[in-house]
């Protein structure tokens, strides 16, 4: 009885059902994509830990960029 009464109270229009369904599915897509981003970040953190343990400076991990900076003097010094 109470259940039927409540169902009547919260009876929604078709467009409201449509909105609820699509918002739920968009949320699912967002959470799924977010878990992938979290896993990527976790790998990044672990990679930094490995680099630290073998003595690589994270800021100098890009060898080419480091070499390029050494070869080309800073504009301010020219």
């Amino acid at each position, binding site marked *: 009885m109470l259940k039927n009464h409540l*169902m009547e109270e919260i009876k*929604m*229009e*078709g*467009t409201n*059902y*449509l909105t*609820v*369904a*699509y918002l*739920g*599915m968009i949320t*699912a*897509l967002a*959470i*799924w*994509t977010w*878990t*992938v981003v979290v*896993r*990527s970040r*976790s*790998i990044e953190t*672990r*990679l930094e*830990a*490995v680099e630290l*343990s*073998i003595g690589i400076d994270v800021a100098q991990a890009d060898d080419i960029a480091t070499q390029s900076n050494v070869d080309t003097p800073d504009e301010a010094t020219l």
Partner: protein
Amino acid sequence: MRRQIPEMFLGVGFVGIMTTLFLGLNWAPSVSIDAFESPAAQRIFYWHVPSAWAAFIAFGVLFTGSALWFFKRSPFGWRLHVAGTEAGLACGLMTVWSGCVWGAAEWGTPWDWTDVRLNTFGLLTLLALFLVLGRQSQPDGVETRDTFSSFGLYGFVLVPLTYIATRIWQIRHPGPVIGAGDGGGSLQSSMALVLLIGALSFTLFIIGHMMISMRITHLEQRLEHAQKSLDGGN
């Protein structure tokens, strides 16, 4: 360029999914007011059917990966298994959620426990949930992978059962609207076109997602191996 293929799949798939939503809400014709209790809610199916289709692809990938790991001990197979479970869970939840909301609008109840298709698909989604949560809570090892792979192998039985359920025991869930086998289809051409765009887009999207997931799993494995080597493990 080759490394960006998964991102391209993901991006094109996402654009297609959003286009499907736009066309489904604004361009596709309404269904007959007499045929449905809630004609507006029928537009849910432009994502509901493609996400179910994508879930079946994901469960197929899960089965293939489980078999490759279980019988061949293939690392590639394990990566397929991981990607398939994640994609199967996401698409399965989307299908179940949208189906429940449509059921509430059309039937007056979100779930019918006597309908075979609803229950077998619900079990498939629960299986994917178990595999994802189980893998996160258990330490990775041969026994763990064997256990989860065997669940992936046996669970696949539910896929053909779900597919034929509405043909054999149609109770509440609508029958197939395309490829029904009786030569008739209840779908207008413009509705079928939106549905086709949706199915293609969801397919591209989950392929992209699964390729990225496999790449991440591979990187995780390599990192773990490197960390073990540094710690003097092997």
